[in-house]
């Protein structure tokens, strides 16, 4: 009896000693969960394309990492924070998901983020815009991957002023997001030597911008900033074209515009619009190669910056697992924050202590139809904005993780 106990102890001891050498993969499978908007207003920007992007990343690893299988689960967040919280909790707790990517709008992403912090598992906030994610709400298990409201303001605001757009007029959606965007961009514009000559607030989800457009035209501002999003942005750009705003010499600055928005607007209406994005499919060889493979699976659609973000986030995560031989969230996170990344789509990037991924972003202008050489040839590069300039400095976000270190 005693002998067998000793033997058992020996075996256990050997097991423990042997552990660091063998892969430490929880549940013997590396599971990625894509929880995003599949059906409603953001599904063009992320949606099914995001799932395809993550699949592409997994296939590049041959479906295996650290000798274990990689699995993918997906779900529609239905734009509800309730669903984000319950599904992420269930994925982490019951289904053994190691990392979640997503998760739709800001409310649902912040909900997932809190669950990730509680369960101590990885969360890649690819979708949301709220800069609070790496500000006062930050936690140690969340990486904010692509962009945030500060970048939109800094990028478009300062870049447009530096490119000569000195006087601004704002068309602002009358709710918290619009107000915040107007306030942030105004601050950036004034700090860079520009001036704000006026603004007008329009109701959320409005279809008639005519009176607002007339005021914007009458202001004689060089730049009309669109501090709104989604359908409101699309409608205001359409009606600006009808009123001949761009032809009259004023420029439109879209603060939250994706390449799919330009696609649905067409170049005729969107031409001359300036916007900031972290990724454009036609920027370099690597992005073109990725876009080509993506397009083959998505009926010729080109990836948005968010979909590219899903791909790189999944890939980057799997690379860490491969290098460390473990999917332990603490170790993966420590390595991500200590080693700068250099990957073809977003270029050189660091992940800061507060969870912010910092990379270069770009100011683009939408081409005129005559300049466009083919389908999806929409942007021309105006300026590359270095990451340190575009993102909010870490000490200004109010993230508690930063104070500690």
């Amino acid at each position, binding site marked *: 009896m005693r002998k067998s106990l000793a033997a058992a102890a020996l075996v256990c001891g050997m097991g423990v000693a042997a552990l660091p050498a063998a892969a430490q993969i929880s549940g013997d499978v590396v599971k990625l969960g894509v*929880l995003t908007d*599949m*059906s409603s207003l953001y*599904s063009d920007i992320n*949606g*099914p394309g995001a*799932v395809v992007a993550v699949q592409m990343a997994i296939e590049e690893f041959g479906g295996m990492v650290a000798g274990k299988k990689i699995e993918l*689960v*997906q*779900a*529609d*967040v*239905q*734009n*509800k*924070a*309730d*669903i984000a*919280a*319950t*599904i992420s*909790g*269930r994925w982490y*707790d*019951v289904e053994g998901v190691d990392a979640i990517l997503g998760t739709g*709008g*800001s*409310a649902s992403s*912040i*909900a997932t983020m*809190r669950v990730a912090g509680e369960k101590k598992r990885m969360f890649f906030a690819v979708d949301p815009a*709220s800069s*609070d994610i790496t500000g006062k*709400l930050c936690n140690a298990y969340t990486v904010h991957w692509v962009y945030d409201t500060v970048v939109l303001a800094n990028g478009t605001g300062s870049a447009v002023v530096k490119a000569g757009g000195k006087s601004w007029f704002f068309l602002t959606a*009358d*709710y*918290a*997001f619009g107000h915040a965007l107007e306030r942030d961009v105004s601050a950036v514009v004034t700090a860079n030597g520009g001036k704000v000559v006026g603004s007008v607030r329009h109701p*959320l989800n409005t279809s008639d911008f005519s009176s607002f457009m007339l005021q914007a035209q009458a202001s004689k501002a060089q730049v009309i900033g669109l501090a709104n999003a989604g359908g409101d942005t699309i409608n205001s750009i359409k009606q600006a074209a009808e009123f001949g705003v761009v032809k009259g010499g004023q420029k439109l600055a879209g603060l939250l515009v994706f390449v799919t928005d330009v696609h649905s607007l067409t170049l005729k209406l969107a031409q001359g619009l300036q916007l900031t994005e972290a990724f454009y499919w036609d920027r370099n060889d690597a992005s073109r190669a990725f876009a080509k493979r993506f397009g083959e699976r998505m009926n010729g659609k080109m990836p948005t910056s968010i979909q590219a973000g899903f791909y790189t986030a999944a890939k980057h995560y799997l690379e860490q697992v491969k290098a460390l031989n473990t999917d332990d969230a603490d170790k993966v996170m420590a390595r991500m924050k200590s080693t700068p990344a250099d990957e073809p789509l977003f270029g050189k990037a660091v992940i800061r202590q507060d969870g912010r991924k910092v990379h270069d972003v770009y100011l683009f202008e939408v081409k005129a139809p005559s300049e466009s050489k083919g389908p999806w040839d929409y942007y021309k590069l105006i300026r590359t904005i270095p990451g340190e300039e575009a993102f909010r400095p870490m000490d200004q976000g109010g993230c508690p993780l930063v104070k500690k270190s």
Partner: protein
Amino acid sequence: MTNNHTLRNILLVAALAVALAAPWVAYPVFLMTALCFALFACAFNLLLGFAGLMSFGHAMFFGMAAYFFGHTVKEWGWRPEFGILASVLGAAALGAVTGALAIRRQGIYFAMITLAFSQMIYFFCVQAPFTHGEDGLQGIPRRAFLGGLIEVKDDRAMYYVVLAIVLFGFAAVYRIIHSPFGQVLKAIRENEQRAISLGYNANLYKLLAFILSAAIAGLAGSTKAMVLQFATLTDVTAAMSGEVVLMALVGGIGTLAGPVVGAFVIITMQNYLAAAGEWVLVIQGAIFVVIVLAFRKGIVGEIGDLVRRRPKPGPAGSSA
């Protein structure tokens, strides 16, 4: 009659046993969310099923109570039980104001007035700073219940607290329906003129029912905010008002257990069909159409009919 009673008691005990054992089988947070929606649907059903008032704005009580809870507990540091109490009173007050105006009209006009109020509340929440707009009021702390007596950090412990709150809500609805007050409500639902001619002040009864329903919806909303630790705009949208109608319809309007079953069906679909991606809403819509066309009385209503129609109740009849 006695047979029906024993059957009902057996079902009740079985349901209670299932409710007690559930968190060891299913994911507790999902169960708690479903329980809160079940209570919300019961509150709605109290109004539609027993007073005949079709409200299209119940999300305002549910959602506002969630915000009240979040604000009192997070910003003012109140204990959760006081937060819930404040939310229930807040929802009842909101119900008193909107109800007093809405019950002056009937049928579709009543529904439209409630819808208008809930849209006003929605736009208020979009703009008001304390709701934090699209980000939602996030990170409401989970404090121990009853001054530290019941620790609720663990999801299963939380589940039993929520179960107790929700059962209290169910009991309140049951008590209201089976009281003389509930009988008068039913009389008003069947024939308002006759109830008035019998000397009942129909408007007062309707207003009281409206306030009670708002308060219970508020109890559900604040409990949900306590469980999920946030309150967001989703809970005050018109879509949420529609969803609770759907829950009541699927389960069976005018039955006690109907809304509970309906809520569980809808919430389960939203959570477990989510992997079907863009098809969730289509499936939800298809089920709605099938139920409206084929099972007019909802799941529980139809089963109830089936049991009642049986000439001699067999032991196999309780498999529902």
